[in-house]
Each structure stands twice: as C-alpha cells, then as structure tokens.
C-alpha cells in the first residue's frame, strides 16, 4: 500500500491508535480481495455510498466497489486533476460533478485503485439511487463502458419530510422484484434471509458505538473532530464493512480510545498534532475538499477551531436520530435506511438537523463548505445558511470549494474567508461579553 493511500495514514502520522491500524488493515485487505477477485472467480458489485446495501451484497458473497470512495481517494492522492482533465478531454462538461469525471478518468487510465492495484470490472452495477440524480448518469455511463448489467433501485425522496408506507412498499417491492433477483443471478446463490439478518444485527451494534463516538463531541473540550476526523470514523460504516465483525471490533476499539481521551481531558488529534486549546466549536454542513484535505484541516486546527458536528458524516446513514438496522424487518429496515440518508432529507429537515446540532453541541457558529460538484448538497445551502442563522442566532460562514477538483480549491480565498469568519466570532464574543 502506498504511503498516503488511505485516510488512515494521514491521521496516524501523528498518533497510531489501534483502531486506525485496524481500519488500515481492513481497507488493505478489501482492496487485495478486489484485486484478486477476477482470478478467484469472485464477483463484484459497483454501488453508491448513500443507501448502500452492503449487508445484502455481502450476504450473497459479493464484493462491493464504491466509485465515490475511489474518486475521493484519487483526490487525496493528487490524481484527480489528471483524471478530471482526461474526462473533460473526452467531452465531459466542465460544469458537472467531478466525482463522475474523476471516476471516468481513472477508468480510462487503467482503473488502478487507491492501493495501486487494479480494480475488477463490475459484474453488476447496483444503482441504488439515493439522494442524487447524478448517480443515474454515472451508472448509465459505466454501463456503457463496461457493458455490465444495471439493477435500478429508485429510492423515493422525503419530499414532505416523512417516509410513508407507500414509499417503503415501493422500495421493498423493488428489492424483492429487481435487486434480489439480480444479485441471485450474478452470484448464483439464492437469497438467504438468515444471513442478511445476522449482518444487520452486527450493523446495529457498530452503529451504536459510532453514534456514541460522534456524540462525544458534545463535551468540552471535544475529544474528536467530527468532520475532518469524522470522515475517518465513518469509513468502515460507509464503505464495504457495515455488517462485518471487523466493523464491530473497529468501533468498539475506537470507542475505548475516545473514552481514554475524555478521561485525560484531551482535545482532538490532527495531522499536525493535538488541539490543546479549543477556541471555536463549529457545526459544518457540506462535504470536505479532498485534494487539499490536510491543508484545509490545518486552517481550522491552527485557529483552534474544532468541528463538533457535521452533516457530511451522515450521508452514509443518519443514526443519531435513533435509526438502527433492525434484523427483524430485514427488507423494510434496508428501505428505511436508504430513505433516511442525509441527502435524501428535504431542506426543512436538513435545517432542523443543523439547528439541533448547533444547540446540542453548543457550537459558536456553523459553517457551510459549498462544493461546486454537488447540487444535491449545494442547491439551497444559502437559504439553509440564513435559516439556521435566524433560528440559532449564531453566525454562519460560507466557503466554496470542490470535492476533488483542485482548480476550485483556492487556499488564499478560503483562508481569507475563514479568518474573517473566526475574527467575526471573536469580535461577537468580545462585543457580547
């Protein structure tokens, strides 16, 4: 595995916790399995992070590949500029989501994954289309590239802020009539509900610990950074591991470590050392930038700014409102999970969630990182900003960048805005006192 290949590595530069070692090993193992899959005759399913059906896929003995994660990793490894450039040369518009272009560029450059090993071609494209219309196009594109079958799972949007029976029935119907048969076809195995249930039970356990970890940020000082650090914590739940024993162990370990930090009254660990003086507590909305992830984090850490809650860490599932995978209603619970992911919530619900975070996590303010790529996140964020500001009375900040397109990360511009924002909070405090 190359040096900066995984998120795990960045964090361990400062402190090698056991949980991080475990995560690293899990990821390495997964990519090794993927690389070997063609030889060993193992089949793999490409699918998306929000609303991913990892437990179901795993119960068929199939391996998941998540193109979003590959794109993110390409961004972190400094490859995305070339990949995106290549895709644009091939006729993809400058205006559209760079995850897609990054993935297409990677595919056209030999499909070498984050660990330097070649990724297997998909045997099935599971288009679990949750929270983002771009997914649709993405897999239509991949479908043409690989000539692979596509299984469509249309996950209805919570347009009115609720999940209705009709919506649930629709998803379960599709699972039964479309998705499961497709998985059966390519795996050659029959659907095994018991196997699924076992995995769902393990998911619930891991989810319990994950929520505990994320909520530990309610303390002062917060022992974790729930955004920059948070993206590492959600890794195993997001990606290929939910429902595995590895994930259960990872979160148990992580929880123990955080408990240790709390006992010592310590703040979060960053790549540049520990934050000793928590000066600003922030809630962040929107995905981070991956191409300058470390620089981006630094801009916060240097100022003693700690993110105590973030919405991005909920795109792979919102658990802190009580939802857990329920082995007793296997398909229904999968449906509820899919429909409950953050980007599948309507804007009023997103505002409520942010408002709650600002209050429950005693934040000094909240900040939006608006990414050019993602309309699903970004369209409406300016209104979210004003609404949350109005409801909480805490100052909001707004910065713009992109997920993996380095052309849209202007360090000086972001720093300028962040500095002004922090100085504003500071001034407001001084004025208020």
């Amino acid at each position, binding site marked *: 595995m190359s040096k900066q290949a995984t998120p795990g590595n960045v964090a361990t530069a400062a402190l090698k916790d056991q949980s991080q070692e475990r995560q690293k090993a899990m990821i390495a193992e997964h990519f090794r399995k993927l690389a070997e899959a063609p030889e060993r005759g193992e089949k793999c399913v490409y699918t998306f992070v929000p609303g991913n059906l990892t437990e179901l896929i795993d119960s068929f003995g199939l391996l998941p590949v998540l193109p979003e994660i590959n794109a993110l990793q390409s961004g972190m490894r400094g490859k995305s500029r070339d990949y995106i450039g290549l895709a644009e040369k091939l006729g993809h518009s400058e205006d559209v989501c760079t995850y897609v272009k990054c993935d297409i560029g990677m595919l056209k450059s030999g499909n070498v994954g984050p660990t330097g090993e070649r990724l297997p071609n998909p045997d099935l494209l599971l288009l679990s289309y949750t929270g983002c219309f771009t997914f649709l196009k993405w897999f239509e594109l991949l479908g043409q590239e690989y000539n692979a079958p596509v299984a469509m799972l249309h996950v209805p949007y919570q347009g009115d802020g609720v999940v209705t029976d009709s919506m649930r029935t629709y998803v379960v119907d599709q699972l039964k009539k479309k998705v499961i048969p497709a998985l059966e076809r390519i795996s050659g195995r029959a659907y095994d509900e018991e196997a699924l249930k076992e995995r769902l039970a393990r998911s619930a356990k891991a989810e319990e610990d994950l929520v505990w970890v994320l909520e530990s940020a309610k303390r002062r000082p917060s022992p974790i950074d729930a955004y920059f650090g948070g993206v590492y914590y959600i890794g195993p739940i997001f990606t290929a591991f939910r429902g595995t024993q590895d994930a259960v162990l990872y979160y148990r370990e992580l929880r123990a470590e955080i408990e240790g930090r709390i006992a010592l009254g310590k703040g979060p660990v960053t790549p540049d050392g520990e934050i000793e003086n928590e000066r600003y507590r922030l809630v962040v909305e929107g995905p981070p930038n991956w191409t300058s992830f470390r620089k981006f984090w630094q801009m916060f850490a240097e100022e003693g700014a700690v993110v105590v809650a973030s919405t991005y860490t909920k795109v792979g599932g919102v658990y802190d409102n009580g939802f857990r995978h329920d082995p007793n209603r296997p398909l229904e619970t999968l449906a509820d999970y899919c429909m409950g992911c953050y980007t599948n919530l309507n804007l009023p619900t997103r505002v409520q969630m942010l408002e709650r975070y600002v209050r429950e996590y005693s934040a000094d303010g909240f900040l939006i990182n608006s990414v050019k790529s993602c309309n699903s996140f970004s369209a409406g964020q*300016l209104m979210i900003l*004003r609404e949350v*500001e109005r409801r909480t009375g805490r*100052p*909001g900040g*707004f910065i*713009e960048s992109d997920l993996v397109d380095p052309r849209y990360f*202007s360090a*000086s*511009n972001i720093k*300028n*805005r962040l*500095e*002004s924002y922090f*100085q*504003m909070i500071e*001034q*407001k405090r*001084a*004025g208020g006192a």
Partner: protein
Amino acid sequence: MKIDYCVGIDLGSTTTKAVVLDGERRILGRGITNSRSNYDVACKVALGEALINARFSLIDGRMEHDGVDAERRRELLTRFELAFREQQYRSQLAALRTSLHQHAERLAMGAATNAALERILGTMEQETGELYRVGASRKSDFFRDLAGSRYVELAEAIARDGGHAFDPLVGLFDKAILETENSTEAVGTFESHARKAMVQAGDPALQRAVTKVLSIELVQRLGVGTGYGRQRLPFPEKLIRSEILCHGLGAHAMFPGTRTVLDIGGQDTKAIQVDANGIVTSFQMNDRCAAGCGRYLGYIADEMNLGLHELGPMAGKSCRTVRINSTCTVFAGAELRERLSLGEKREDILAGLHRAIILRAMSLLARSGGIEDEFTFTGGVARNTEAVKALRLLVKENYGERKLNISPDSIYTGALGASLFAWREVSRQEAEPVEVPA
C-alpha cells in the same frame, strides 16, 4: 513639538489608501496612490501622502491659530497645495525622463527616439504650470494616469506626423513608468517641495505656518494593514486585519448608525452586515469571477478614453438605460463596441453598464442578509455618481426607503478601520506590555 499617530493601510488591487489617526482617534490625514507591483513602495507612498495631507491640515490649523480668516486660508492653502503638487509632478517627470532615456539607450533605439522623447517630455514639462493652475481640471491625481494619458496623446501626434512609430514609444513608457512609480525617491520629500511651494505661493502668513509645521515631528506608534494583497502585505502577521472587519469598523466610525455596508473596489465587491458596535455579523464577497467590479469601469474608461470620474456624469445624461446582462470585465470593451455599432448611444450604454454592476452588488447584498437601515456605500466605485444613482433606485425599489450614507472619503473606509484597529492594538499592548510583536 511631536504628535503620535497610528496608520491604517488598505492595499487594494487598484489603489492603496492610508489613514493617519492621532491619539484622540481624529483623522489627521488621508493618502492615496495607485497600487503597483512593489507593495512596500505602494504602502510608503500612501503613508507619505497621508502625512502630507496631515501637514496640510496642520498648516491650516496653524494659520487659523495665527488669526488668518477662513476665506483667505482656503485660498492660500489651495495655492500652496497646487504649487506643492506641481513640484511633486516635476520631480516625478524628471525621474521618468531619466528612466525613459535609460531604456531607449539599453534597447539601442537611436537618435530619432531620443528626439521624439524630448519632444514629448519638453511639451509635458511646459504644460506642468498650466496643469496645476488654480481651477484647472485634471484627469486623475495619480502620476501614472496623468503623465500616461498625455504621453500617449503626444506620441500619437508624433506618429501621425510620421515622426516615430507609436508602439515602441508606448512600450518605453510602460517600462519607465513602472520604474518611476516603484521608486520612493522619484516623488521627492515633503520638506523640499514644501519649501519651494511656500516661496512660490509667496505669502508671509503661509510661510510662517509652513515653517512651524515643518518642525513638528510626526511619530508613528503602529501601523495595521489590510487589503487585497493581504497575504503579502509588508506588515507582521499580527498587524494584519481582514478587509471585511476593517470596512465594517471604518463604516461604523464614519456613520455609527450603519448596519449594512457595500464596498465595491477594483476586483471585489463585499456586502457586510454590522451591529450597533461595528461588529461584523455576516458578509458575502464575489466569488472567483471579477465581473462587475470597479476594474470593469476602468476598462470602459480606457476604451472611451475618459477619466474614471468622467464616466458617471456621462452616463447621467442617459434617458434610456440599455439592458446589459454580461459584465465580464475583459469583454467590456467588446460589448461596448458591439452596442455602439448597433446604434445605441454612449450614455445609454454607460447607464446600462452601471446598472449591471449595481445589480450584481444587489445579489451579494441579498445574500448577506439584505439591506438594513442605515446603509453605507464605500470603496472607489462609491465615488461614481451614476453608480450611486443606480444603487439608490434599486434599493428603493427592493427594500423601500433606506438612509444611504456616502462620504466623499468613502474610499478610505478600509484604511480608517485598519487605523482604528492599530490604536486598539496599542492599547492592548499597553495593557500587557509583554507581548510586543517583533
């Protein structure tokens, strides 16, 4: 005698502004110069100009103290200032001449070029007196613009007569002006110009006051910097403040009732909301596209061969505003030509351009939280009457009656804010003297 002051410097993309504040937080002087590639020099020149301005007001004060009546003071001071500026101009022109000849020599351009240069410079020198006659109008206060436009005109005339090719002459100027404006020596010193100007003005009361003021020592306590080139400002990091905060605080100091501030500078537009204490509560800036900022007007002025301050009045003559949707700065010239060729009138197009700029600003304002009472318009573009007119109209249409503050000194708002921060820093350091910055 000795006066302590703090200075705030706003290094903008177009202009560099300095405000000098005494211990009572009173404005002693303001200075402005065009920004240039040598940031150090830009700051020094702006500060120098502010100190000159400070001394002018001290001279005025002195004369008042000596019992000279207001009418006479105004007259004397105008004469003195013009004479002073004339001296400054001559000194810069001399530096420019040297530089031009050096470049011509280096490029081995030959005798014809030298002759052409002398024709141009000779004329310019001759005209200097007229340029600074009482009541004469000037295109700009910056040497670069003043000398530049005249030089180009004269070069064009020479080219028309077949005396010398145009492009190389302009090329020489572009090189020489860079050198001239990046040297602090070229402007000369206050004292030497003042002494000459004092003699030129030839009035005993004035001479007494000038001599007196020349003996006053102005002592800088601290300087705080802000502005576009903030990452590279010649100030220690601790003494740099964000532009947003400076504009907020500056506007508050000028108009304590201000709640919303709009600043349109050369390359950026900022909409800022402040509370009753001048504390910024939210702000918005234009993103990575500079469309619709002040520089846009600069291009237009160049294209029409007008001075910046002539744009507004010309647009003011329009009775039919043309709709313009694109404000890409670089396309400004092309858009203008296209519209002209479609038969639209210059003033109507100009009115449309101004409205387009303000429309963009309205979006940012809306984004930052709307327009509250009172509303202050700052930055260079606030000097443009047509921009102000368009703003008034749109504010009224969309937000109803709002008190709109505009000061002739609005371009100094950021620098004023910075100078206030400088005094705050002085007080802070006095409170905890251990933390003196390096």
